[in-house]
């Protein structure tokens, strides 16, 4: 009699959010318990890249059944080993439950969060071990490179990418195939391809997740691009803030060299190509391509005038193509499945999919990849699960500091490059920060201007000085000192700065102000005319008050107040001294009787 042993695989998400939620200790218990029950030879534990459902972490999926476990703890891991892996009974309490309490065991098929997604750039995230090249190969990895080198001329590769309609995913949406073609046409003894992994837009983390979860797809995309344009060297410029991505890229590059996918005479052809990592040093402007190249050259990362464009004269004066991480990760599937397949997804002018990072006031935070042209409403409500705590959605911010806010009345907009532009914002790198009625739009504009002032490289006066003046005006307005004249001045400066700045950072810096003024003018007016902040966010315009009817005198607020602004006798209503209060909100957070509220003015 023979005993059939069915091997199981436990895929544990090792994305940033799951790690911070305690993934390491969960994995450790899985491994310990599997050893204890002598299951370690038939059950494999694999750490994968980000699965996307970040607010449910730590996550694990157990195959062959495809059972999806969420919010794991070391205790949960132990139970799952004993019940599920040993006895074959999925542990219900760690399965995902829908809003009505119904159990959904199989995530990819049953969860609305996953159901609507089409994964191309993130096809391997959460599926393979990013530190193992064999797993990447097992998912058709490096097949596209092989196809390109053995069966296609560089011109054919360019034609394929061009007809796929792929556009840059880093923000501006320039057609990738065209960029490659322009570079190919420039004769030079040396050309470069650069992967722009300086993901700086606050609220966007798809590049980080791809680099951490599937580094080989980026390397393969770069090698294909290098072949197409005729480059023999590549650089990946990655943020210093992403140490794990750097570590995994280093591992991936080593493995790719070992397997002969990088280096001299790749796959026995006369094509040679190698990649070097360059680490950024914390300058947002280095996401701009000319600044990025200056930084790789070891200089201050300041942009320069274009033309000449990088495809003409780039890194060290040589023709250079710069592509974003997500763009490159799309390249291998396009080569393998064909341009037509890719072009059949998306809209007329925006082909394929886009990865979005959902963050802010939204129930399901995380990463999603969806076809271009999906409506914002579907993205926020069907996939994102809507706004938690019953608040009303006010706006969705896209495009980071270069973008703008889309108000609730435009939720039915189709998300593609052109439609977002019409609404006064941009696709950007795909960060979407959802804001609700507690967020003040003037304050949001001020936040972004503060960012731009910090990150302006200082080269052009309109950007360096102009954004500072705009920030001062916004500070004046949010502290209740603003006038109508200030609003006019803001508009005027916005116009001037966007016309007179050299690079994208300055040109787009006024966007957050212009877009909030366009849709939320009444909030600006409330700050200026009534000295009132409708969202009760601007500190100078609010006070915290205790409702004596509701306060029971439990002293919780007085104890938590860091500046001792709250007084009162035990079991008697307390009071807040507005002169001492720093408006930190700690008291409101601890009050269990809903007795503390904000008022404005």
């Amino acid at each position, binding site marked *: 009699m023979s005993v059939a042993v069915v091997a199981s695989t436990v895929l544990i998400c090792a994305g940033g959010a799951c790690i911070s939620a305690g993934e390491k200790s969960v994995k450790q218990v899985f491994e310990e318990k599997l050893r204890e029950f002598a299951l370690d030879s038939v059950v494999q534990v694999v750490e994968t890249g980000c699965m996307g459902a970040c607010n449910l972490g730590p996550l694990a999926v157990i195959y062959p059944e495809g059972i999806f476990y969420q919010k794991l703890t070391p205790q949960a891991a132990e139970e799952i080993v004993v019940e599920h892996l040993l006895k074959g009974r999925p542990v219900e309490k760690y399965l995902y439950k829908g809003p009505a309490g119904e159990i959904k065991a199989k995530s990819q098929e049953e969860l609305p969060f996953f159901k609507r997604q089409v994964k191309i750039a993130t096809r391997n995230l959460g599926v393979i071990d990013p530190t193992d090249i064999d797993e990447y190969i097992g998912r058709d990895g490096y097949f596209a490179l092989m196809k390109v080198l053995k069966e296609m001329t560089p011109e054919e590769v360019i034609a394929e990418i061009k007809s796929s309609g792929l556009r840059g995913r880093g923000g501006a949406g320039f057609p990738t195939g065209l960029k490659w073609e322009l570079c190919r046409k420039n004769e030079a003894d040396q050309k470069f391809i650069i992967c722009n992994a300086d993901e700086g837009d*606050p609220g966007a983390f798809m590049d*980080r997740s791809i680099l951490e979860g599937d580094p080989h797809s980026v390397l393969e995309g770069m090698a294909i691009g290098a072949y197409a344009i005729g480059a023999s060297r590549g650089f990946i410029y990655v943020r210093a803030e992403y140490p794990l991505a750097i570590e995994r890229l280093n591992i991936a590059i080593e493995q790719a060299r070992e397997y002969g996918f990088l280096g001299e005479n790749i796959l026995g052809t006369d094509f040679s190509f190698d990649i070097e990592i360059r680490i950024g*040093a*914390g300058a947002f402007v280095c996401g701009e391509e000319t600044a990025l190249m200056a930084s790789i050259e*070891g200089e201050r990362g300041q942009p320069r005038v274009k033309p000449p464009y990088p495809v003409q004269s780039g890194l*060290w004066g040589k023709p250079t193509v710069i592509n974003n991480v997500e763009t490159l990760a799309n390249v291998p599937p396009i080569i393998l499945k064909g341009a037509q397949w890719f072009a059949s997804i998306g809209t007329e002018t925006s082909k394929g999919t886009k990865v979005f990072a959902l963050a802010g006031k939204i129930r399901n935070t995380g990463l999603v990849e969806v076809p271009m042209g999906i409506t914002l409403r579907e993205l926020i409500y069907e996939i994102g699960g809507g706004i938690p705590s019953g608040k009303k959605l006010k706006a969705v911010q896209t495009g*980071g500091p270069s973008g703008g806010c889309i108000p609730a009345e435009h939720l039915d907009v189709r998300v593609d490059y052109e439609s977002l532009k019409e609404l006064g914002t941009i696709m950007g790198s795909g960060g979407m920060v959802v804001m609700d009625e507690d967020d003040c739009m003037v304050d949001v504009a001020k936040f972004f201007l503060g*960012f731009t002032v910090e990150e302006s490289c200082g080269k052009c006066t309109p950007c360096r000085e102009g954004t500072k003046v705009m920030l001062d005006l916004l500070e004046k307005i949010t502290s209740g000192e603003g006038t109508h004249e200030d609003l006019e001045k803001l508009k005027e400066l916005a116009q001037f700065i966007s016309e007179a700045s050299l690079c994208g950072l300055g040109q787009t810096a006024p966007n957050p102000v212009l877009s909030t003024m366009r849709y939320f003018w009444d909030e600006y007016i409330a700050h200026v005319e009534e000295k009132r902040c409708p969202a009760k966010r601007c500190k100078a315009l609010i006070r915290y008050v205790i409702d004596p009817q509701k306060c029971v005198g439990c002293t919780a607020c007085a104890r938590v107040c860091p500046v001792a602004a709250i007084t009162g006798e035990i079991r008697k209503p307390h009071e807040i001294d507005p002169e001492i209060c720093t408006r930190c909100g*700690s008291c409101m957070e601890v009050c269990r009787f809903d007795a503390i509220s904000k008022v404005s003015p």
Partner: protein
Amino acid sequence: MKTSADLDSSLYQRLDDYIESVKEKPGILINVLHKAQEIFGYLPDEVLEYVAEKLDVPVSKVFGVVTFYNFFSRKPKGKYQIKICLGTACYVKGGDKVFERFLEELEVEPEEPTKDGLFSVHPVRCLGACSMAPVVLVGEKDFYGRLTPNDVPSLIKKYREG
């Protein structure tokens, strides 16, 4: 080259070894500065002068680069660097309040170490962990998500007591 007594010469040796291994590569200055900061904890002026000499570039260029990038610090930092994300997602979820509470509790200015040298508080750009907003990173690896200002005292206590 004069080096002060409190900067260990073995640290310079480590820097030398690194420079030796990469100095043929063009544009390597930023990588060398990363390494120097990793070794010394920050970038004191004498280290910058040392790097300039070793790489044969003007000191003014090294200073220019160091002061341009946020990641480089010419001041010593605390033993535990508390990096508070002030990206958009963290901001709308109250990251600024967490930041202010850290400054209040530790009685410091941003980027300055506490008197005992244990902590320094750094506002940082998006850490890419937006789904856990607001987030704080202590050192290089310890991530804390979904913080409120009232979590701050116990977090500080945890590190103070080791």
